[in-house]
């Protein structure tokens, strides 16, 4: 976290910002992708983001419901992503104090562990349930998602920063 961003006091987050970010992430996931394995899962990225930033507001329950929606919308085994997202939310909340001490790329290194772990849980569940292993490229998606962490952070903090910067200018 650079000095310019750490010193700036953010506005309290609004619920509709959080909701809108989740809806947009779900939309991105429902886009018709040609190869599904290398597409980053933005829902998990946004979930980690809000669990780290607002652990009081977004947590296990949100992750679980999002996971269920994801499972039902995609027709996969019900509960697969609900479990993965619950674990993801838990560990993101546990690490939230630690993660925020690092620079954006340092945070991304933490996030990559979380996302790959969540994907591994989902894969493990499916393989245990009898599906075939879809190949190692399934872990490319989480890597790309983690690389998107710095731009996603800047983007998602814009709604909280706008008025502060307006005051500074004024």
């Amino acid at each position, binding site marked *: 976290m650079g000095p310019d961003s750490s010193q700036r006091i953010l506005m309290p987050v609004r619920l509709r910002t959080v909701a809108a970010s989740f809806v947009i992430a779900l939309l991105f996931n*429902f886009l*018709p992708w040609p190869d599904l394995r290398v597409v980053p899962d933005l829902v998990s990225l946004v979930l980690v983001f809000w669990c780290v930033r607002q652990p009081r507001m977004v947590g296990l329950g949100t992750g679980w419901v999002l996971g269920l929606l994801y499972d*039902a*919308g*995609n*027709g996969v085994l*019900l*509960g697969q992503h609900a479990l993965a997202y619950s674990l993801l939310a838990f560990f993101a909340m546990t690490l939230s104090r630690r993660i925020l001490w690092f620079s954006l790329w340092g945070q991304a290194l933490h996030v990559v562990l979380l996302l790959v772990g969540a994907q591994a849980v989902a894969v493990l569940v499916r393989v245990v*349930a009898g599906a075939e292993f879809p190949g190692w490229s399934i872990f490319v998606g989480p890597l790309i998602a983690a690389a998107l962490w710095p731009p996603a952070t800047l983007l998602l903090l814009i709604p909280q920063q706008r008025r502060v910067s307006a005051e500074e200018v004024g």
Partner: protein
Amino acid sequence: MEHIPPPFFKRGPAPLVRLAFFASLSLALLVIDARFRYAEALRSALALIAYPLQVVAIAPVLLGERVADYFSTQAALVEDNERLRERLLAASRDAQRFEATSAEAARLRKIIGAAERLTGRAIPAEVVYANRDPFTHKVIIDKGLQHGIDPGSPVIDETGVVGQVTRAHPLVSEVTLVTDKDHAIPVQVVRNGLRAIAFGAGASGTLELRYMAANAEIENGDQLVTSGIDGTYPPGLPVASVTRVERDSTHAFARIVGQPAAGVQRGRYVLVVSHEAKLPPGPSAVQPGKERRADKPRRARLREADGPR
């Protein structure tokens, strides 16, 4: 003075407890969904919530296609027209041949007293959405229970069998493709009538004929069609062509791999053939000329085909 934490420190149950709660809830759901079929109502409700998002997500792609269509050049249109006319000619020739053949077949079947085969209602549908689940080979189509889709109905396209409806939601349905690992379909070799079962081979996008004896009479290039003995798929639909046969004397079974005939991975428009029409007809249906159900277009067509003779 009592030390009670002020209300803004209250956080509900400890995170670990919450994790245990949600994780066990997920595991219970997983087991219920994988082993039993009790979670279908919940899944339908959730799928209905997710449906608008799916429609919005697919909209820009459809819009882009429409815009591209609009700006397609005249030369492309002329060329397209030419090709389509050729195909129409070929198709109408085939259709005439089909009329004659089906009339002849109907006559023969009457002679041997076999039940007339019924082809049912066909509902056209569009693939809105390839499944985002990389573990399975399924697609979502834009017709559901409200349009009369039944779970179990076979799905075909213009070249062959695509798969089978495995889940019907109110507005969309899920189609398991023939290449899915858990999908099996009874087939027949066109050349010699040999029956077999084709299983999906999963990620490779091919089909596999299992449990065929090492000396089974099957060759590269053999056409496989549905045999219809399962009562689900109507007989005679192209399924695959054999691309590889490996006979190993150390194994009891030959390894036979086929390429699906339909555009399983790329087609956008499919036909859902109604399920009930393909149930084997009861004994009363065997008697020729007896009208059992008025809503069978096939009967009318068969009679028409019989008429001119």
